């Protein structure tokens, strides 16, 4: 289809908001962050069972070496991102504010394992079979780099009885401030397209659509030009709206299909992967390079030098902030991820992990919530919810402890996009209470199954 004359851009219809984009670093070329003095690599950087540590204190490790093995099907390997000596296996505070086990390595040089192809040339010939691709993904530690960190090989293993006819690549990056995927599409466009072809081979399908929001016209133009030499890959510009990068909304925008409540994209014959994940799959399959580094946006209005950096996993966030000009005196909040769904960090020693797409610094004036006032029943929260829920009601039910009713009102459908709390004119903590309700309802449902 000739997209040149498309006047009305596709998007999802229900709900959504338009927060200010603040893409301060969209034009900043990705730079390689210098190696840190030491790294702390957590064993749980993905949804599913944490990996089991297989190294000991004092061991020498090389860049790309497995240091923790995947535990079960929904799990992946964790690799050392540096070469050096294992200092200790200890706990460290991660982005959630809680502690988890991490492998601490003192960096010595940058010696890689022999199996990795470190050349720069782009290999387009896909030699691995479909099954080999899927196991290579798990071995190489590939997880969803959009932030959800779901093990990619699981998504590629279509269960029997289900069918996939379309691969959707998420190049939307709908969160304000973040530009890592944007830069990757501009700088590694061909590699991403090869990665998409690899994913298509793994899924045994012939069609892929890349969704990109219209605030990245340079990336759209660049990828469209490159995609001409690839089979079956369509670049689709989308109208800018949050949360278009949420997979259910992206699927709806591109195909009109609605993933039913409680089900997965495969139930509407679609598999979705982030653009950064496609790049990581390229590196894993064509270069035998495991997931040991990623592009991270370091940004904020108060930073002297915001930018995009290629960072080794396990690098402390403080090093990124230092490279961006140092921690400004007026820093009220540090966010890992985007402002809508990201996590506020308790300190800057927290290591960069696979799911960390960006670090945003907020001044104190933008860090504190407005005081909560009574609900005026304006129903703006209902009008912006992309899933057709009623946040004011879900908050009330959670407050009153009416969890059975909350379950009936589909509280577990909530994807925690934050559109409701963002919009509420009375500054009510809608999402806080919805989270409380969700966790309680999920626990109740689990206990019901056990009985």
């Amino acid at each position, binding site marked *: 289809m000739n997209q040149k004359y498309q006047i009305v851009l596709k998007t999802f219809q*229900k709900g959504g908001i338009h*927060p200010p984009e603040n893409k301060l670093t969209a034009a900043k070329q990705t730079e390689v962050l210098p190696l840190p003095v030491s790294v702390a690599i957590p064993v749980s950087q993905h949804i599913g069972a944490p990996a089991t540590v297989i190294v000991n204190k004092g061991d020498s490790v090389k860049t790309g070496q497995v240091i923790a093995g995947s535990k079960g099907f929904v799990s992946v390997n964790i690799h050392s991102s540096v070469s050096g000596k294992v200092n200790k296996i200890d706990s460290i505070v991660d982005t959630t504010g809680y502690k988890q086990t991490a492998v601490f390595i003192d960096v010595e040089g940058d010696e890689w394992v022999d199996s990795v192809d470190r050349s720069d040339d782009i290999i387009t010939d896909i030699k691995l079979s479909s099954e080999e691709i899927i196991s290579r993904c798990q071995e190489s530690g590939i997880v969803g780099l959009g932030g959800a960190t779901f093990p990619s090989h699981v998504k590629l293993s279509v269960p029997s009885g289900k069918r996939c006819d379309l691969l959707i690549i998420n190049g939307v990056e709908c969160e304000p401030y973040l530009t890592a995927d944007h830069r990757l599409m501009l700088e590694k466009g061909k590699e991403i397209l090869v990665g998409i072809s690899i994913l298509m081979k793994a899924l045994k399908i012939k069609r892929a659509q890349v969704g990109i929001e219209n605030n990245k016209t340079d990336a759209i133009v660049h990828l469209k030009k490159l995609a001409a030499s690839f089979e079956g890959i369509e670049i689709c510009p989308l109208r800018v709206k949050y949360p278009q990068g949420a997979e*259910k909304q992206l699927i*709806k925008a591109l*195909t*009109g*299909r*609605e*993933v*039913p*409540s409680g*089900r997965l994209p495969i*139930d*509407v014959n679609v598999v979705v992967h982030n653009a950064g994940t496609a790049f990581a799959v390229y590196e894993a399959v064509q270069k035998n390079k495991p997931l040991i580094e990623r592009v991270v946006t370091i940004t904020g209005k108060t930073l002297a030098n915001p930018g995009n950096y290629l960072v080794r996993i396990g690098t402390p966030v403080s090093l990124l902030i230092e490279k961006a000009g140092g*921690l400004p005196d007026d*820093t009220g*909040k*540090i*966010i890992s991820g985007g*402002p*809508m*769904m*990201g*996590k*506020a*960090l*308790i*300190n*800057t020693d927290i290591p960069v992990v696979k799911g960390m797409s960006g670090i945003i610094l*907020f001044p*104190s004036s933008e*860090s*504190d*919530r*407005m005081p909560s006032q*009574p*609900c*005026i*029943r*304006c*129903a703006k929260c*209902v*009008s912006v*919810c*992309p*899933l*057709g*829920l*009623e946040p*004011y*009601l879900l908050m009330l039910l959670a407050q009153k402890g009416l969890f059975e009713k909350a379950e009936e009102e589909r509280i577990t*459908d909530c994807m*925690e996009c*934050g*559109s409701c*709390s*963002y919009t509420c*004119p*009375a500054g009510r903590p809608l*999402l806080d209470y919805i989270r409380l309700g969700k966790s309680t309802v999920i626990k109740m449902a689990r206990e019901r199954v056990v009985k």
Partner: protein
Amino acid sequence: MSTLFNISLSPHSHSQETTKKLMFGVVIALLPALFTSIFYFGYGALIVTSVSVISCLVFEYLIQRFLLKKPVSVTDGSALVTGLLLAFNVPSNLPVHIIIIGSLVSIGIAKMTFGGLGNNPFNPALVGRVFMLISFPVQMTSWPVPAGFNTGYTDAVTGATPLAIVKEGLKNGEPLSDLITQIPTPSQMFLGNMGGSLGEIAAIALLIGFVYLLMRKIITWHIPVSIIATIGIFTTILWLANPAKNADPMFHILAGGVLLGAVFMATDYVTSPMNPKAQIIYGIGIGILTVVIRVWGAYPEGVSFAILIMNAFVPLMNRYIKPGRFGEEVKNG
């Protein structure tokens, strides 16, 4: 590092829309109607509006501060809006003591007894208006003839509203063709040169306010459009069935409080339904009841009662009419 960072949960940004900004947005949308009321009714309009606004603010302050002993929230703008809307629902020659009583009922009974902003089931300004109508029927139905600053206040020359003229005339058996000559023309009604309450006379002022509210995203189109469309369709059917005994739809929409009610009263956040499907049914209900009361009921005007009756159904509608859920049925594109 001795700096403490804020670690509240996502989202970490806010739209910056506040209750106060929304309320003051409504005030701005009411300004055209306020200017036209002063233009046509002179000092009376000024007195009635000021007394109503000041009384509402003072009563809310006194009740919150001394009776409930809770934090005072008069600055959020909601009492100001109630004060303006209450004034817009009464004639410009209404004596001061009646306005004060109406304000006390609106704020004290219809709003504060239920728990203040956000908790009242019925539209406070309408409750105040209906209370005054029932308690002071003579003063609440004597309508000054518009004469600018020569209208006077309690000494104003009065006449009947177009709705009353038509209703009484039809009851007495006069043909509609005769009655049409006694009432203002549609263009006069559009611009405000007619008898009625402060806010209902000038359709154009109310429509400007409507457009402003839509642009500011303070209200959506669903309630006003469904009310006006329902009234239009219902009165068209009646008019086509019997043009001698029923006024045309344009008259019904321009005369009386339909536009004021549809744009400013029925769209009150607290007392209207919480999703578009329910809002449209709400609007249809108000439209039907308005016409029923106007044509077959005892009063010439039915909008206030229609809205209050539908207010009573809102909790039920919120409970059983839900917004369309994403992924309700398997949709394949």
